[in-house]
């Protein structure tokens, strides 16, 4: 079995990652989303576990959340109501959007089995008072993680965790950087699945596998790479169906700016004497989410990716009712379209309506 197959295979049974970890007598903390510092959880000797959704239809959650709330959040809540996250020792959410804020209320009110914690991250970047506020919040979060795990977090252990996670991000970036080539070594669907697996696994294992993988794919070339080069941007995609559809239609997905891919690994912490400060600045000096202000840097980031990866067309993917990205796509689209064609898609998280979008995707790719 190749390393590529091994990593992708992890997605068939992601809970196994957790079981293996728990077998060592250690705790697991679920989290959503990028503004929850995994490093703090890891430094307390617990496994940060990205709660992803499933393509299953929502059942119980619909009598709690109105169907106009983001389906991803409803999906997570549905799994929670069904006890599918009972293996977690806690769930940490961050202040990114209205839907996640409501998830906190719903979870605390209706699910007793897993305690839920809300990290109050500011939505303002490059702002000293915001750094200060966030530092206070992170200190409270650190204390909660220490209490939950029974382990004290020292500066040294936190620094070690930061280095470990930086290495994962660096390796993922290096691997994905290979997609700049005229003929990329991995397809868009493969890249997304590797990234998701890397996010889910303990980073000690991830890093070793990623090193092997980079080596393994260096000389590889995907087939049918002469189609238009596509960047997919938006919020969260946690299964490869959409990317596969684009690739089946002849597109070559060379970049995916999603919560489960580039947004996760594109940036690294900056050198800092104080590890907590490094985390504060890491989260408030990188423009990955549409919830943050100002937004110019995110636009510049998209432009940078378009240039570096020689992107011919952009697919702006929005989970239905995802307000931050719905606004962002309307705001950026006009400007982006001046140079690069854009197709905006709004799809349920389960991607159930994808069949209807087939013709639009096909027409877009043919037009390119």
């Amino acid at each position, binding site marked *: 079995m190749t390393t590529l197959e091994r990593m992708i295979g992890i997605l068939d049974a992601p809970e196994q990652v957790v079981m293996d970890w728990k077998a060592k007598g250690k705790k697991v903390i679920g989290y959503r989303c990028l503004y929850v510092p995994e490093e703090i959880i890891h430094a307390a000797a617990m496994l940060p576990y990205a709660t992803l959704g499933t393509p299953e239809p929502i059942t119980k959650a619909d009598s709690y959340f109105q169907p*106009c709330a983001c389906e991803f959040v409803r999906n997570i809540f549905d799994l929670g109501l069904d006890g599918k996250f009972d293996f977690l020792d806690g769930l940490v959410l961050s202040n990114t959007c209205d839907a996640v804020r409501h998830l906190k*209320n*719903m979870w605390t009110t209706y699910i007793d089995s897993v305690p839920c914690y809300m990290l109050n991250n500011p939505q303002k970047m490059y702002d000293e008072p915001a750094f*200060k506020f966030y530092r206070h919040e992170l200190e409270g979060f650190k204390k909660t993680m220490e209490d939950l795990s029974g382990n004290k977090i020292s500066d040294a252990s936190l620094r070690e965790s930061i280095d470990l996670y930086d290495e994962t991000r660096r390796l993922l970036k290096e691997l994905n950087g290979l997609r700049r080539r005229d003929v990329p070594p991995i397809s868009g669907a493969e890249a997304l699945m590797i990234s998701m697996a890397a996010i889910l696994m303990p980073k000690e294992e991830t890093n070793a596998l990623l090193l092997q993988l980079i080596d393994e794919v260096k000389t590889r070339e995907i087939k049918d790479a002469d189609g238009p080069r596509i960047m997919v941007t938006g919020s969260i995609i946690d299964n490869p169906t959409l990317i596969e559809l684009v690739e089946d239609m002849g597109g070559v997905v060379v970049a995916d700016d999603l919560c489960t891919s580039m947004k996760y690994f594109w940036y690294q912490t900056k050198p800092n004497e104080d590890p907590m400060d490094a985390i504060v600045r890491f989260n408030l000096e990188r423009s990955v989410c549409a919830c943050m202000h100002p937004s110019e840097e995110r636009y510049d980031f998209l432009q940078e990716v378009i240039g570096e990866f020689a992107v011919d067309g952009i697919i702006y993917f929005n989970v239905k009712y995802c*307000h931050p990205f719905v606004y962002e796509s309307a705001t950026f689209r006009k400007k982006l379209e001046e140079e690069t064609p854009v197709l*905006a898609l709004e799809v349920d998280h389960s991607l159930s309506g994808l069949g209807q979008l087939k013709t639009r995707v096909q027409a877009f790719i043919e037009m390119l």
Partner: protein
Amino acid sequence: MTTKVTTPGEKSLETTAEISKAIKAYYGGVKVAKEEGKPIIWSYGLTPREIFHAMDAHVIYLEHLPLMVGAKQLSGHYIQVAEEEGFSRDVCAFHRCFLGCAVASERDPYLDQFFVDPDFIIATNLPCMSESKSFLYAADHHNVPYYFIDAPINTWGKDIPDYAIEYYAGQLKGTLDFMSEHGLGTVDWDKLKEAVSLSKKLILLWNEIDKCRQAVPTPMGTVDGLTAAYPLIQLPGTQLGVTLFERLLKELKGKVERGEGVLDDEKLRLLWFGVPPFYNMGLLNYVEKYGAVVVKSMIEYIAGGAYDPSIMDPDKPLESLAYKALVDIVNPISENMVNFIRETVKDFHIDGVIGVVKRSCGLLPGYMRPVKDAVYEDSGVPTTIFDLDGLDIREYDDATSKANLDSFIEALLASKRR
């Protein structure tokens, strides 16, 4: 399916007619200010109005435009303009409507009476994401500076930590400096203290007004209440707001003494939870045929109508305003909101809660189930929940809305008879 069967709400108080005039006069003043070359601000959401009044700033509060054009049945047009601009139908109808007003190349003469282009924009993310993000678009479109006030969500309940107050108050100071830099002169701190003191008076008066409304029969329903809330939402920190509330209180006290209610024979008291039917305010009167009155609407409190006035200390104006914003009931997450509705149901002797879901709202639909459960658990009062978009007529179905109200009220009356 949509219908165009809409009617205005029928008000019953003299002071609310006066308040309506004050609203018109306010926007007339903004128009004049623009002509005189004074800077015009656009703002929205829960930006503390007191800082604007203290700076004598001329502000268009953009939540108002959708209400006004909605009541004139013009909202559909501007919503369409925004959609043509690329905004999805999932974007809040209020914001689509205001964005349509903001970018439309031609405006209806009615809107033109009070529409003025901005010189700069001050936005916040309270109570929802839409507030800050749609403003970015407007700032881009009009090519004007933008200041963003980041409101932490309230994860603390009533005990807001000092570091959160410091963060928010610091941003208010930043807003004042931003206004100064953009042509509004230096900050007059005495005036700001005075504004906080007047704001405190305003909430004390509102609390007394609320007490009158608890009387059975209620002297003021929410058709008047939504207009009466204007000083609360737009005039905190002004003498005009205080004067209007003093008059309203006097009028209501007189009615209570005389036992005069909105209805002579009040059989049911209802609470409206969610966005009111601005497009068809007559729907709030519709229930009166059953002897039912919508006593209150949660929206009346949307910009600080439900907090303890003792937190307002004029000597600490920015900290007071920070505290007020952070404990606001619409500041997620919902504990404060749920508790507030629970208390309101008891204090106002509510028989049933009408929960309406505006599909494109990111905030209120998430409260429906927790409110329904908490209210029922606490006082056995039922809640009905149905879809109703008060602004986007394409989403509004008059017959279904009325049928939903009919069946809920009939069930309430039947259970009263038992």
